[in-house]
């Protein structure tokens, strides 16, 4: 498996560290039901069989956080972007 890092190009998966599902944003601490939202963000996962948006850290490369779209049935990677682009958008 190789991840097409937008900065470094196609790099071997062993250079990256995996965090997991990118669709679970950190809830606001002052949200009215923050307890439930933090529980869901920390523990509950869709865990799809198919396309999965996930966070990878290019630890042995440019040290960027990436958001990768990958098929969990085939390991095909269809997209890799800087995670910060989504946060800023």
């Amino acid at each position, binding site marked *: 498996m190789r991840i097409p890092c937008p900065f470094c190009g196609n790099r071997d998966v062993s250079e990256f560290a*995996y965090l*997991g599902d990118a669709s679970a944003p950190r809830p606001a601490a002052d949200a009215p039901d923050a307890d439930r939202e933090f529980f869901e963000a920390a523990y509950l996962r869709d*865990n799809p069989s198919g396309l*999965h948006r996930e966070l990878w850290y290019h630890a042995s490369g440019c040290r960027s956080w990436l958001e990768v779209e990958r098929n969990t049935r085939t390991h095909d990677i269809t997209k890799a972007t800087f995670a910060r682009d989504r946060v800023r958008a």
Partner: protein
Amino acid sequence: MHYSIFSLARQALLGHRGWTAAWRDASPKSSYDVLVIGGGGHGLATAYYLARHFGIANIAVLEKGWIGSGNAGRNTTIIRSNYLLPGNNPFYEFSMQLWEGLEKDLNYNAMVSQRGVLNLFHSDAQRDAAARRGNAMRLHGVDAELLDRTAVRRMLPFLDFDNARFPIEGGLLQRRGGTARHDAVVWGYARAASDRGVDIVQNCEVTGMIREGDRVVGVETTRGTIRAPKVALAVAGNTSRLTAMAGLRMPLESHVLQAFVSEAIKPLIPGVVTFGAGHFYISQSDKGGLVFGGDIDGYNSYAQRGNLPTVEDVCESGMALMPMIGRLRMLRSWGGIMDMSMDGSPIIDHTPLDGLYLNAGWCYGGFKATPASGWCFAHLIARDEPHPVARAFRLDRFASGYLLDEKGQGAQPNLH
């Protein structure tokens, strides 16, 4: 047909033409009292104990492929009960005791071999941790022995004791641990369950859950609609897919774990040995192959195959432990899909939906748990209350904070 020395002698005289199929390959009826989804070790054990001890025989086990084609046939066959936490230890010891009587109970040779499980340690801190775990085991009535370097050397002279970085200082030994033949466990449970009237339905994939309000009352399958007041999930890595059909999200991620077997050699490794400075476990099968494994690849996967960096990592750990395996050729490697829970411990519990029961989150320790998992799940299904040794395996522990994190690793599956 009862298996014994007499049936074997009789069949030998008759030219072995009288053996009948070990279990019935059933077609599904339209309704049952209990539907067990998943024809692996856990599902078949659940059906067997429901029929044998809890008086429910109108059961079907639905399997999407053939029985034992998932993780039951992909593990490294290790059985042990060397756990630290009070929520885990009595459960795994119950499982160990069931293993010890399993073959008589099932009238089937599961090749349970109590050849010992040795966890090596390589530093003073690891020795302290091993002593603590050994003491916890003994307090629960489980056998544990702390071996020093000399005793380990006597047992396994071929290890790399003077490794510059990870010298072997000793090990924690559970003599009652060992291995069992994984396929025979599946077949033994299938045969014993089938004998008690359980329908084992293969090539029957669940495609939907039938809900009436907050109740699950049956499933849609590739072989038609099947209804039952109790639907029990024992589907390991596919748990999230099935609960999603009922509208539930789970504290689980599916990850790929690889396992390996070398070419066959003469008897070398007497028991199961684990490396304490990495994640590596190895034993030798009765056919002579060295069976070994290590970490999960560490990313979500349903692919049943892994990647090469993990293969390299596992083999490096093996080389650090016993450099001579570098002369062996690897025969096969394969991957299984683990239902990794967020704290590394299993779930045997009700779900928020009436009639839907959950057995999941076995991470990569499911095989050793097979008998107790089946028994405790059957207890939950039949009596609607948890078995005393499985009380801690609650689904709501992630919300309540009563986590069972055996190694204190944190809420991320690829740390366990």
